[in-house]
């Protein structure tokens, strides 16, 4: 093998290693959620089996998003247990009435209008179709934020190639389009972008 081939191959290998191993680590920074919240614990101990019990729709049909601090205060007005997370929840957020600054994994750009009511109530999609099976998670996921775009890694999905992804992994426009194509529902640009 000639010297040039060796050097070329070395360059090729360096790029491949950097691109597949180092780049994904460098692209995303990691942040902790402000609280340790376990969906599974809440489902098991409080009997909250349906997502809609906390992530509810308002009376006018709009999705209310994350539960307010008042919802948490319904059970945690006083500390339940002795964990540090419980103390943080009660002392830092519930007692002063401050909303918990959750880092939203699925936050979309401001120019996207997405109606939960249309998709959940109208089309009958399950929450897990887009969000994955969070209800059974027994640990707090690290929030990974893209250093360039500023959005959560959940938008692109966890596979860098976006190939052979699990259902609900990825929330890019192409994912919306794929789902609409599968369900044969046509929506123009103005349907999501106003």
């Amino acid at each position: 093998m000639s010297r040039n081939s060796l050097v070329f191959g070395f360059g090729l290998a360096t790029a491949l290693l950097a691109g597949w191993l180092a780049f994904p680590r460098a692209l995303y920074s990691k942040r902790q959620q402000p609280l340790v919240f376990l969906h599974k614990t809440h489902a098991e101990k409080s009997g909250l089996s349906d997502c809609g019990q906390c992530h509810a729709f308002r009376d006018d049909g709009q999705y209310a998003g994350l539960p307010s601090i008042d919802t948490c205060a319904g059970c945690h007005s006083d500390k339940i247990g002795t964990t540090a997370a419980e103390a943080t929840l009660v002392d830092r957020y519930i007692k002063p009435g401050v909303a918990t600054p959750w880092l939203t994994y699925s936050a979309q750009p401001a120019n996207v209008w997405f109606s939960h009511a249309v998709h959940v109530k109208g089309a009958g999609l399950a929450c897990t179709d887009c969000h994955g099976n969070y209800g059974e998670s027994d640990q707090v996921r690290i929030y990974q934020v893209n250093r360039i775009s500023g959005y959560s890694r959940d938008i692109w999905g966890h596979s860098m190639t976006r190939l052979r992804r699990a259902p609900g992994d990825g929330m890019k426009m192409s994912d919306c389009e794929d789902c609409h194509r599968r369900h044969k529902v046509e929506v123009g640009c103005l349907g999501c972008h106003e």
Partner: protein
Amino acid sequence: MKLTRRDLFVWGAGAAAGLAFTPVPWKLLDDTSIWSQNWPWIPQPTRGPVDVKQSFCTLCPRGCAVKIRMAGGWPVGVAGVSANPLTHGALCPLGFGAHQLNWHPKRLRAVRHNGVPSSWDAARSAFVKACTQGPVVIIDGYPGRAASQVFETFTEKRGAYVIALNPETRALSPYEHWTGVPATVLGYDLENAKTIVSFGAPLLDGWGIPGRFTRLWAERAAGIRDPELRLIDIEDSLSHTAAKASKWVSVKTGSEGALAAAVARILIEERLVAAQGPVPRLTLAEASDQTGLTIDAMRDLARMIAAKPPAVVIGNDENPGVAGLNVVLGAVGARGGIVRRSKRSKSYASTDALLANAGAVLVDSSVPWDVVPKTDAECFRFAAWDGGSGRADWLLPAPGFLEELTDVPAAPTSGFETYGIAAQLTKPIHEVQSASQFLASIDPALPTPEQLIHARCADLFKSRAGRVYAKEVRPVASLESAQKLEEQLSAGAIWIGDPPAPGGLKCELKEWPQGIATEPSRDWSATWPVPILPPLATKLYRESALREAPDRRTA
């Protein structure tokens, strides 16, 4: 082993080749494009509670009902209101993008005097001084509002209030001369017409209230409504309206008046109508020369028009020759023809005669930019968007879309009275004043639009006439109070008066009016206030299914 410069290049080539097989270039391309959407100078909708308000578009006098999606108190989306009985959910492309217009690059952000930045105080002083030089003339492009009443009150002892007629109302002005009823209270009873003859009026391309005739035509095409409704379009080119009409009659440019005269002559001579005169002097042979149509073709056209009464003719301009055809058809004051929607009888003088001696001319923001007063007087022009410093001495920034409270009277061409209130839904993003606020700062005794709107609601309540179309339809007589009525209107409901009784207009012509040869407008969008027509909104609208019949929509 010694590394050479060649090694470095070869290594780089290998690395470049390798990178193409990694996610790096593709992911960076995606991320940087998303990053570019969030540059700090790009306006972003506020994060906050999402709410939907109902109101009216005030960009032009058609006053279409709009649903505004608000995020954190700012409008982020506009859609039509399908429950509105006038627009049926339709909007023009400009309306769909209206919430973006407040951030338009051409937004007038500060007072300008002859192109140089100035102040409100300087403008006020200059206006007061100019008023002492001669009468003040106020030009209004959207008559019938509370603000219009403020203008009238201000000019009662100081000068004159005039209105700049929009193209649709201008087409009705011949009837004002013949009947004495102001063109601003005349309209078309399209819903009851069987044959509609358009002389170049872009009925299917922006004429009148979006969703009125387009809806009638789409429902007819879909078999939902009267299948006998016919549209005959007469113009020199194959426009969108001509392409969709039951029949397109291609005539030479500017010969519409001659064709109208020929058709009137045939209608009378062949006794296809009850009228026996006036018979136009123009012979059929002369009309044939002017229009390029054969006499037989004109006879066929006349018979087709008379075949399915009631028929109504709609002109694109104030051509009295075209308007005269409605008199022969008996369409003036008749069901399915031209109707008087209001008993108001005040008409306004034409602009030109009053401008010669004026000391100051104030142009309201409702006046389109193509209306430029021909005067030596100092001109004060209110506008939300800058149409050019050369068109006025003073440019005064006015409230933009939904930045002020205003009322919404009946649209031009409407066959019945309507009234709505467009509430102020968003804070002005610059220091703006409406013309009525500006005048109130000079004469504090003037009534405010708010007071006048209260009074108008009280009058409507007292009259007990008409119905209010909110989530449910209720007769005014069933409402508890005027305040309740005003509350409903402020929340986006619309009051619709009782249909006018037929026969409210009498029109007889002793001789056939002389037609005028005019160049028809080739671009209906040119009649809109310049300079704003979001190109993206236009393209999306044209390519979307919004203009299709309701049962053909796919989403």
